[in-house]
């Protein structure tokens, strides 16, 4: 067995990392046993010396000196001091307000929906319906501020409708036509009548006058000819 190569392994066992293979070798080989014993002694000496050094006590006046130095310090303040709580709460509220304002400014402007003018062949003047009003019913009232920023509010009595962006224009047109009392649109938008309509009475068929005649060949012959010519 190569004892020289196992020196590290012996050190491991002496340090407390016990391995069965090495222990078996130590049992067999006396130089290894002696070497391990030396390592053990070394480790014990290290531990004892360190423990002896670390067991040293401070001199008697040590704690009194610490107290004397501490007495020169201001009183430690608890974080639960009401003044601190109030100050912390104020700072947090101010920060939240700042963040909220900042986020509002960063929010993208809502797209302004322009209602397209409909070109109609009918020259008759249509009833005046302001297009923005149609938007009001969809998205609430739309105001323009002095700085040109569009602000949408939802303070309307009519219900709001969530519309996908690609359908806004179509719905705006629909509302315009609805306000213009377009019959088809009104009919489409108005709910179906609930009362049942009475079935109309149909007079029974009179079949007594029917006459049965045999078919005449000559009457439908030309028609056959006509078809035959077309096929040719």
């Amino acid at each position, binding site marked *: 067995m190569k004892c020289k190569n196992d020196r590290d392994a012996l050190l491991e066992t002496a340090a407390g990392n016990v391995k069965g293979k090495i222990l078996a070798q130590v049992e067999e080989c006396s130089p290894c046993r002696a070497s391990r014993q030396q390592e053990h002694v070394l480790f014990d000496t290290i531990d004892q010396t360190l423990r002896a050094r670390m067991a040293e006590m401070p001199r008697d006046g040590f704690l009194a000196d610490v107290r004397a130095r501490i007495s020169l310090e201001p*009183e430690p303040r*608890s974080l639960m001091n009401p003044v601190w709580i109030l100050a912390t709460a104020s700072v947090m509220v101010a920060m939240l307000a700042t963040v909220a304002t900042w986020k509002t400014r960063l929010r993208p402007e809502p797209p302004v929906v322009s209602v397209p003018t409909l070109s109609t062949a009918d020259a008759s003047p249509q009833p005046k319906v302001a297009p923005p009003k149609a938007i009001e019913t969809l998205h609430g009232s739309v105001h323009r501020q002095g700085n040109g920023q569009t602000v949408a509010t939802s303070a309307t009595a009519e219900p709001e409708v969530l519309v996908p962006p690609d359908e806004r224009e179509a719905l705006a047109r629909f509302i315009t036509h609805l306000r213009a009392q377009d019959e088809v649109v009104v009919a489409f938008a108005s709910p179906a009548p609930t009362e049942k309509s009475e079935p109309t009475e149909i007079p029974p068929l009179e079949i007594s006058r029917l006459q049965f005649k045999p078919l005449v060949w000559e009457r439908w012959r030309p028609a056959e000819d006509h078809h035959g010519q077309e096929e040719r």
Partner: protein
Amino acid sequence: MQEVALIRPGRTAETELASEREESSLRREFEERLLECGTLAFRVARGVVHNAADAEDVAQEALLRAYRRFDRLRDRTRFRAWLVRTTFRLALDQTRSSRRREQRETVWAVEAPLPTAEDLAASSEFGRRLMEAMESLPEKLRLVLLLASIDGHSSDEIAELLQVPVGTVKSRLHSARKQLAEKLR
């Protein structure tokens, strides 16, 4: 005759009393921690610095800092852990600065002061070599070894003090002892 109470403007008497009670409670708690951990701080410092007087200075400074931030260190475990780490760092700083001072003084000094008989008696050759070997250890290994030598701290207790897993403590302890043995062989 009516009783008159002097209170600070803007604060009610109840607030004042509550604040005083809180401060008194803090002082009492800190006194408990001081009695419990004062020696521990000294020993941690003593494991790093070269003499007891320096170790006392370092421990005092660490305890003073602990007092200043005691409102955040009221938990017993947290206090001990913080104190051990702070003392160790302060002791390392002290050692480094004293080493630099020694180097400066050596340049100008013609003769180094001879060790006294007491010094020679107190320090054995092995102890000196051991301390030198300890100084060359990485800080993490060194602190674990120091704590294991103080009051027979177990691996669990060291793990709690340093806020690291027990396995890490065992591993560091093993490496530290092995490295020391290699240096001292």
